[in-house]
């Protein structure tokens, strides 16, 4: 389980820095699929592991994209919010031990609201921290929304690809 997550970590960072960082639609839309790592961590993950691994994930992406601290801050914020989001949208039923959030396990509606909230948190922190001024508030908001849609599309695509593999 741990090994699987480490491999996923490496693969997602490489995918992000080598390919997705160079994808930009109209100067507005950049996908940040590496957050999939945080979305896919098992329910039973210790909370400190969650924060530390999120920090390392963002830091690794930062090193390769020359934005030291930026992705780390966004990832840590997202990881921090994850337990609250899960308890907020879940109906109280216990999760299978060792399972991770997925469409198959929790249903489309649950997974979509889970992913939308967390991705929006991540992108909001990322883009506003990157700009760091309020004069471009609305154009940044547009970037957040469009990029979140792009990222979510890739997240759902990954979900379906892994379901078919099983």
């Amino acid at each position, binding site marked *: 389980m741990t090994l699987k997550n480490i491999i996923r970590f490496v693969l997602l960072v490489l995918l992000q*820095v*080598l390919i997705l960082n160079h994808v930009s639609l109209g100067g507005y839309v950049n996908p940040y699929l590496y957050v999939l790592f945080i979305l896919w961590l098992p329910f039973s993950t210790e*909370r*400190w592991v969650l*924060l*530390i691994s*999120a*920090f390392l994930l*963002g*830091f690794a992406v*930062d*090193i*390769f994209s*020359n*934005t*030291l*601290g*930026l992705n*780390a*801050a966004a990832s*840590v*914020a997202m990881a*921090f919010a994850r*337990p609250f989001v899960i308890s907020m949208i879940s109906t109280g039923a216990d999760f299978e031990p060792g399972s991770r959030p997925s469409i198959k396990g929790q249903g489309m509606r649950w997974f979509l609201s889970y992913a939308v909230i967390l991705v929006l948190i991540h992108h909001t922190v990322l883009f506003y*921290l990157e700009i760091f001024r309020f004069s471009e508030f609305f154009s940044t908001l547009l970037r957040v929304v469009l990029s979140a849609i792009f990222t979510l599309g890739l997240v759902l695509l990954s979900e379906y690809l892994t379901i078919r593999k099983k």
Partner: protein
Amino acid sequence: MRNLYLFFRKHYFYFLFLLLETVSLILVFNYNDFQNAAVYTWSEQAAGSVNSMFRNISEYFSLRNTNRVLTEEIAQLQSRMPEAFYKADTNTFFLRDTMYKSEYRYIAARVISNTTAKRNNFIMINKGRMHGVQSHMGVIIGNRLVGQVVGVSRNFSWVMSLLNKDSRISGKFRKNNQLVNVEWTGGSYRYGTVREIPKHFEIVPGDTIITSGNSEIFPEGILVGTIEDFTISPDENFNTARILFSTDFNSLGYVEVVIDLMRKEKEDLKNSVQTK
């Protein structure tokens, strides 16, 4: 103390979050605006080697596009080669001056070789007899004086630069038409000497010297330069001044050859007076 420990233990998630977030933000604000080399050396190297490794592979996928760009660039450069526009590019421009019923023609030419460091400097241009250039024609750039044509071949011309010991320009002060001679006495290519300034004439640094139009080489009013400073020589009949040339001879790209279409008429008239 124990309570404090328990407090931290209970809320470690928040404290860990705050700690990591603070570290991230410190990184953001310290290392993004001005890139600190000390922290960056190792991370840059690691990132650089991975990126260049990937770039080595990904380059192959864009070879077709790279080829296209390169061929376009070669074509563009080739069309800029001097050979590409010898015969085609004979643009001539007419200036019809109705006030004086005079007519000058200008031929644009490209400077092929140029020196400023010698005592006698010459400029070679890529227009020659075929394009209508003849000896003793003036060469200007914009409204500034460059020199005069001294030798013409089929496709090229030699221009005696103002920076030449044989070059003597008949000029005048713009403010009152006082005639003077302008020479270059060597040294810096930016400064020349104005000779034969009458004693009574008051010189002010910054005075503009233009061509007089007395020779058939240059039209009247071409800029020569501005007075930089001057010396009063009590023993001589004339004062001299140092002039800052308007033309930057070291950066000539394109120049214009001036053709005086009434030159023959003027010369004929002059000769008819002299022979009497």
